[in-house]
């Protein structure tokens, strides 16, 4: 590579000294161009969604939207305060069920008995649960809760959502535990700590931020899902008074209002979509930010 050597043709090393035939180069360029076009094509729908969300949703965005009840069909004004509360309540119920279950299972399969048959079964089940359609969570909650209590309820919706997010929480928690350096555990055992003390005082605190990421991703997922709550929590035009009554949620509101023949309700569906997308994006992005400092 000295300066006074003969100039080497640009593609010398890629062609063994021979010129690549123009036809092959042309084909190369065309395929690259095709690849670029196909990739840009996916930007079109995304941009279209964002533009429509802003154009149709922003004009309605105001304080009323968050404090008022939905308008009856044909009426104007109102908001979807009860739907936001309903979504939060049901996601909360889902977390109460699935966070302990997911994290404790993850501790068992990664800390206590990683090679046991039960651990293998848990991993297999978690994988299968990720693949189960979200509507099946709703069907199960319908069969298990709605049919036994004879009542559409926030509880049923919460149960459906908890099944939906359990695999997310379990698998990300397992990843989080795997991320804790083994030397920490050895050091802890080395000073005579029991497995429980090691897990409780060393491993779990260390894995907590990554676990929180998983939980937040689960929250983002659950708050956007419609199918599990569609026929478990149903919908309501009123504020939530108890967990055992039909409850509104943002996503079902969008679904219901989108098919109504009133332009005001359709605008509200867009506004609700905008709020939902902003909510989901904020939770997703903050989950990423929490996780970042762990990469040391």
């Amino acid at each position, binding site marked *: 590579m000295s300066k006074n050597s003969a100039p080497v043709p640009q593609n010398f*090393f*890629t062609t*063994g000294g021979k010129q*690549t035939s123009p036809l092959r180069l042309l*084909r*190369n360029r065309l395929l*690259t161009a*095709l*690849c*670029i076009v*196909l*990739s840009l094509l*996916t*930007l079109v*729908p*995304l941009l*279209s*969604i964002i533009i*429509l969300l802003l154009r149709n949703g922003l004009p309605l965005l105001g304080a009323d939207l968050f404090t008022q009840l939905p308008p009856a069909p044909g009426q104007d004004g109102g908001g979807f305060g009860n739907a936001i509360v309903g979504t939060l309540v049901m996601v909360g119920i889902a977390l109460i069920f699935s966070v302990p*279950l*997911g994290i*404790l*299972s993850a501790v*068992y399969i990664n*800390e*206590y008995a990683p090679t046991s048959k*039960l*651990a293998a*079964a848990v991993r297999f*089940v*978690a*994988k*299968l649960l990720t*693949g*189960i*359609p*979200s*509507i099946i969570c*709703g*069907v*199960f909650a319908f*069969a*298990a809760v709605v049919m036994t209590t004879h009542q559409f309820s926030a509880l049923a919706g919460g149960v459906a959502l908890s099944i939906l997010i359990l695999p997310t929480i379990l698998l990300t928690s397992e990843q989080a535990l795997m991320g804790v350096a083994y030397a920490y555990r050895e050091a802890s055992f080395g000073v*005579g700590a*029991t*497995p*429980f003390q090691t897990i409780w005082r060393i491993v779990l605190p260390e894995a907590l931020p990554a676990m929180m990421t998983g939980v937040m991703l689960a929250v983002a997922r659950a708050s*956007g899902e*419609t*199918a599990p709550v*569609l*026929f478990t929590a149903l919908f309501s035009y009123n504020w939530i008074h108890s967990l055992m009554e039909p409850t509104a949620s943002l*996503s079902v509101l*969008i679904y219901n209002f*989108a098919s109504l023949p009133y332009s005001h309700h359709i605008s509200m569906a*867009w506004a609700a*979509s905008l709020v*939902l*997308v902003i909510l*989901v994006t904020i939770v997703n992005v903050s989950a990423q930010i929490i996780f970042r400092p762990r990469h040391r």
Partner: protein
Amino acid sequence: MGVASIPVGPESPIQREYRPRTDFFKGICWLASLLTVLLLVCILLEVFSKAWPAIHRFGFGFITGVQWSPNREVFGVLPVLIGTGISSLLALLFALPLGLAIALFLSEDFLPAPIRQVIRFVIELLAAIPSVVYGLWGIFVVVPLVQQYGGILADKLGFLPIFQGPAYGNSLLTASIVLALMVLPTITAISRSTLVTVPYALREGSYALGATRWETILGVILPTAAPGIVASSILAFGRAMGETMAVAMLIGNSQRLSWSFLAPSNTLSALLANQFAEADGIQVNALMYAAALLVLMTLCVNIAGEAILRHTQKTTAGLR
């Protein structure tokens, strides 16, 4: 100073702290694991037991029947099964070239890293948009488009059964287009992760033989990553089958048997979404039967996809 001088009195606090004892926490974790496993069993049992009256009454005729009329208590899901299969296949057909192109962009060095980061972010954004928002967007963007251009398709290619008119806005094609967008992130993510694991030495070898970039991609990289790409397609197919809300809002919800992409159709999940809230009596059992079919189908597809993916990871690990 001898052995006898070790205190035998009450334990010191430190001794007490480190005395081996039953680890209740382990028991709790074991119980949680057991519950997780039982949950899946529970779901299957619950769905199948509630479906049993319908399975018992309609048997195999439920799958081959073409009529769905709850008020006459006649239930058949063949058109719905066909709708599920075709809409998912069509979605895959649309999404695979796009997903593969993006995956190649993200794994090869066509573009500087920051731009690749942006593309990745965009795809993640696409994955984070809730299904129901896709549905709303579809109603106001894709439905009019399909109605407009579907009419032209039906005019020009109407002699083909798949493009038979009249063209509806809420049709199989509309649902498939939106489904394609929704499974795109799955295809991209899994294809990319397999493409990245193709050993660099294989690329170098191909370049050293004088191959151009695309000859390397088509001749070496894609064949090596093929099993992973197949797995990503299968998993995406599974996702498309289970996707509910956007489809329920766009597909037109018709149980009539039709081969035209431009006609309304239905999928298992959309059927469940539309009918569960108002169903009673034997219709609930029939819907549970449909749900059981959906569970079985998605489980099979997912297990196949995961198996291929695991197999790929083993073989590519051997290449390194």
